[in-house]
C-alpha cells in the first residue's frame, strides 16, 4: 500500500533532497511547463474568464458563509433521491463508516475513483487493516499504488515519475495485483495506458462496491458531480451495486445552475481542456441504471476549524484544480512530497496547516514554503489569495493566538523555533522606529565594511552558501543626502559601486 506522510521533516529539509535530484527536477519541470502554457491558452479562449472566476468565488463564499443551511438542504435532497447520508467528524470516523458499509455488502474488495478526500483520511490503509482490498483505478493513482509511493500532485499524483519509471513499475508490480503487464512493455504513454486498461478491466467488470469522492454536490437537487478523463470514474460510479462517496463538507454549491460556472473554469484550469472527457452526475439512485445503493459520507476532518478562521476560510473555496501547483516555482523545484501531505503546492501550504493544525514540524514550516510571488493567486479559478493566507498562517506560527481546533477555541503559543527571529524582528522594529539608530547602524556597517566576511556563520550561512553578500557602501544614501544637501553641493563620494554584483566586480 502507498506510504504515509507521518513524521515528515520540515519543508526545507525535505526540499533539500528534491532540489538536488536531477531526474525529479527534470520530470517536474517538463510536466509543469507543458501544462502551464496550455492552461493559459485554454483560459484565454474565454473572454469572460475573469467574471466566471469572480462568480465562482462568490458562489463558494456564499455557500461557506451559510454552510449549515446548505448541508441540511443537501442531506434532505440526497435522502429524498434514495441515498443515505452519513456524517463523519474526523478521518477515523469516516474510515469506520466506509469499512462497515463495505463489510455489510459481504465484499472484500472495492474499486476507487481518484479522490483527494479518501487520500486525506488514509482510507486505503484503513480498509486494508479490515481485510478489504482497495484498488485505485485512476492511471496516476495506480502508478502510485503499484510503486508503493506517495502522491505528489493533486491532479497527477505520479507527476514525479517519467515514462521510463512508470514502465518499470508496471512490469515489476502488476502481476502481484492482478493481470501482469504485457511482455516487452515499452515506455510510450499509449502502451502504458493500454497496459493499465487491460490490468484494471477485470477489476471493473467484477466490482460490486465503488468508492468515490465528488467535485461538487448540489444542495437543491442532491446531485453529485465527478469530473474525470479516463473513464475509470464512470466504471466505478456506474458498474458496482453499491456506491460510497466520501466528500468534504465544503464541496457544496447551492443550485444546479451554479455548475455552469465551475464546468467552465475547472477543466480549463485543471487539465487545460475546454472540457474534460467525462463528467458524471447522479442524484441518489436510478431504477435500472447504475448502483442500487448509494451512501454519501460528509467529512469534516478539520474543515469546520478552517471555517472558523475568517482569513483562512477562503482556502475552502478550493476546487482542487491544481493550477496553483503547476505555476508554482517552489513546487516545481521542491516536488510534491516535500509538502508532507496529499495536498502539495501552494494550496497545500495553506490547507494542511489549517486542516491538521501547526503543531508538527512539517505543518509549521509549510506557510514559509513560498516566496510570495503571487503566481498561484493569479491562476486560481476561485481567487483564493494564497499569499494572504500564507502570511496569516506565518503569524499564527510565530505569534500564536486563538485558533479553533477540534471545534474548541484554544490559544496557541508562539512556536519555539522562532525565538531568535522574534528577537531580531523586535530589534529591527526598535531601530526602524528611530531614524537615528538606523543611521548609527548604517555608519557602523560602512566603517567596518572592509572587515566584513564573504561568508556568514550561523543562520546567515543559508544566504552565503549559494550567493555572494552585497558590499556595504562607504556612505549610506541619507548621509550623502545630508552631506551634499540633496546632491546640490559637494561631490559624489568615491563609494561608487553598489554592492549588487558582489565580489565578482
Amino acid at each position, binding site marked *: 500500500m502507498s506510504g504515509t506522510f507521518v513524521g515528515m521533516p520540515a519543508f526545507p529539509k525535505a526540499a533539500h533532497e528534491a532540489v538536488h535530484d536531477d531526474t525529479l527536477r527534470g520530470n517536474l519541470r517538463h510536466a509543469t511547463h507543458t501544462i502551464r502554457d496550455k492552461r493559459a491558452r485554454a483560459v484565454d479562449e474565454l473572454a469572460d474568464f475573469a467574471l466566471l472566476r469572480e462568480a465562482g468565488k462568490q458562489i463558494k463564499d456564499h455557500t461557506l458563509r451559510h454552510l449549515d443551511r446548505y448541508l441540511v438542504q443537501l442531506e434532505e435532497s440526497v435522502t429524498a433521491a434514495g441515498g443515505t447520508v452519513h456524517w463523519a467528524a474526523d478521518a477515523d470516523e469516516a474510515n469506520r463508516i466506509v469499512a462497515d458499509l463495505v463489510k455489510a455488502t459481504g465484499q472484500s474488495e472495492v474499486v476507487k475513483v481518484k479522490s483527494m478526500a479518501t487520500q486525506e483520511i488514509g482510507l486505503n490503509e484503513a480498509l486494508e487493516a479490515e481485510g478489504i482490498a482497495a484498488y485505485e483505478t485512476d492511471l496516476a493513482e495506480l502508478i502510485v499504488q503499484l510503486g508503493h509511493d506517495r502522491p505528489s500532485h493533486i491532479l497527477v499524483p505520479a507527476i514525479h515519475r517519467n515514462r521510463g519509471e512508470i514502465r518499470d513499475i508496471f512490469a515489476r508490480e502488476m502481476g502481484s495485483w492482478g493481470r501482469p503487464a504485457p511482455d516487452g512493455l515499452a515506455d510510450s504513454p499509449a502502451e502504458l495506458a493500454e497496459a493499465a486498461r487491460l490490468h484494471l478491466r477485470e477489476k471493473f467488470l467484477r466490482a460490486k462496491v465503488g468508492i468515490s469522492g465528488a467535485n461538487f454536490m448540489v444542495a437543491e*437537487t442532491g446531485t453529485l458531480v465527478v469530473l474525470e478523463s479516463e473513464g475509470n470514474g464512470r466504471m466505478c460510479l456506474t458498474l458496482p451495486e453499491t456506491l460510497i462517496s466520501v466528500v468534504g463538507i465544503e464541496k457544496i454549491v447551492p443550485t444546479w445552475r451554479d455548475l455552469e460556472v465551475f464546468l467552465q473554469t475547472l477543466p480549463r484550469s485543471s487539465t487545460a481542456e475546454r472540457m474534460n472527457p467525462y463528467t458524471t452526475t447522479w442524484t441518489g439512485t436510478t431504477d435500472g441504471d447504475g448502483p442500487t445503493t448509494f451512501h454519501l459520507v460528509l467529512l469534516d476532518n478539520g474543515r469546520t476549524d478552517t471555517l472558523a478562521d475568517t482569513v483562512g476560510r477562503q482556502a475552502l473555496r478550493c476546487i482542487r484544480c491544481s493550477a496553483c501547483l503547476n505555476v508554482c516555482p517552489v513546487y516545481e523545484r521542491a516536488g510534491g512530497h516535500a509538502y508532507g501531505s496529499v495536498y502539495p503546492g501552494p494550496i497545500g501550504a495553506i490547507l494542511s496547516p489549517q486542516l491538521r493544525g501547526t503543531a508538527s514540524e512539517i505543518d509549521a514550516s509549510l506557510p514559509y514554503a513560498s516566496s510570495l510571488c503571487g503566481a498561484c493567486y493569479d491562476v486560481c479559478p476561485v481567487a483564493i489569495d494564497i499569499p494572504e493566507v500564507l502570511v496569516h498562517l506565518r503569524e499564527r506560527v510565530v505569534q500564536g493566538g486563538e485558533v479553533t481546533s477540534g471545534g474548541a477555541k484554544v490559544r496557541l503559543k508562539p512556536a519555539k523555533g522562532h525565538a531568535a527571529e522574534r528577537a531580531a524582528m523586535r530589534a529591527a522594529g526598535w531601530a526602524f522606529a528611530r531614524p537615528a539608530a538606523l543611521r548609527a547602524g548604517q555608519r557602523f556597517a560602512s566603517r567596518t565594511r572592509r572587515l566584513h566576511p564573504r561568508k556568514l556563520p550561523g543562520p546567515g550561512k543559508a544566504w552565503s552558501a549559494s550567493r555572494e553578500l552585497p558590499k556595504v557602501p562607504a556612505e549610506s544614501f541619507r548621509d550623502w543626502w545630508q552631506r551634499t544637501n540633496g546632491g546640490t553641493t559637494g561631490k559624489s563620494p568615491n563609494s561608487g559601486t553598489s554592492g549588487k554584483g558582489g565580489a565578482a566586480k
Partner: protein
Amino acid sequence: MSSRDLILGRVRQALVDVPGDEATYEQAVSRDYLRVHGSLSTAETVDLLAENLADYRAIVHRSDPGGLPALLARLLGARGEPGARRVLVPPGLPAHWLDAADATPVPDEAGHTAHELDEVDSVVTGCAVAIAETGTLVLDGSPDQGRRRITLIPDHHICVVRVPDQVVSSVPEALERLDPARPLTWISGPSATSDIELDRVEGVHGPRTLEVVLLSEG
C-alpha cells in the same frame, strides 16, 4: 451527540461573524459572465460543434435521415476485420437506423452482466444535448441512449446528434435543458489521460473510438 449535530454545531460556531442580514444567494452572486461566447448563426454553431469534437479526437460525420442507415452500416463494417459483429442498441433507438448494418443488434437489457457487455463490439445511441463551445455530448439515459454502462464498456461508440435541434452553444444553455434528476454522462472526445508527463493520450477505459454523426433532419 451525533456527528451530524456535532458538525452542524461546529459550522454554526465557526460562522458567528456572519451577520444575520447578509446578502441573499441571488444578491451575492453576480451573473454578469457571458451566456454564450460570440454570436454564431445556427449553422455556424453546428460547425463549431464539429470542429471542437474533432479537436478532441472524436470522428465526425454528417448525414441526413435517408443516408443514415448506410452510413451506420459503413462505420460498423469498418471496425476491424470482419467489422463489428455485435452492436448494442438502446430500446428507443429508431429500429430502421440499423437496417443496413450486418452486425447483430444486442438489445440493452437489465439482466446483462458487465462481462456480457464486454463481448459487444460497438454501441449506437442518440443524445440529449450537444455543446458546441466545448465539443461535448450529454447523454441523459433517455430510451434512445439507454443505461450509462452501455456507452462505457464497448470500445466503439457511435452517437447520433440531431442538428440543429439538440445543439446548444454553451455550458449554461446545456444545463438549462438538462434534468438533474436523471443520471447524466458528459462526453468530450474519447477516453483520455494526461497522467504520464501531463501529456494527453487518447484511450484508457472508456470507448477508445468515439464517432459522432450530425444528423440534419428534413
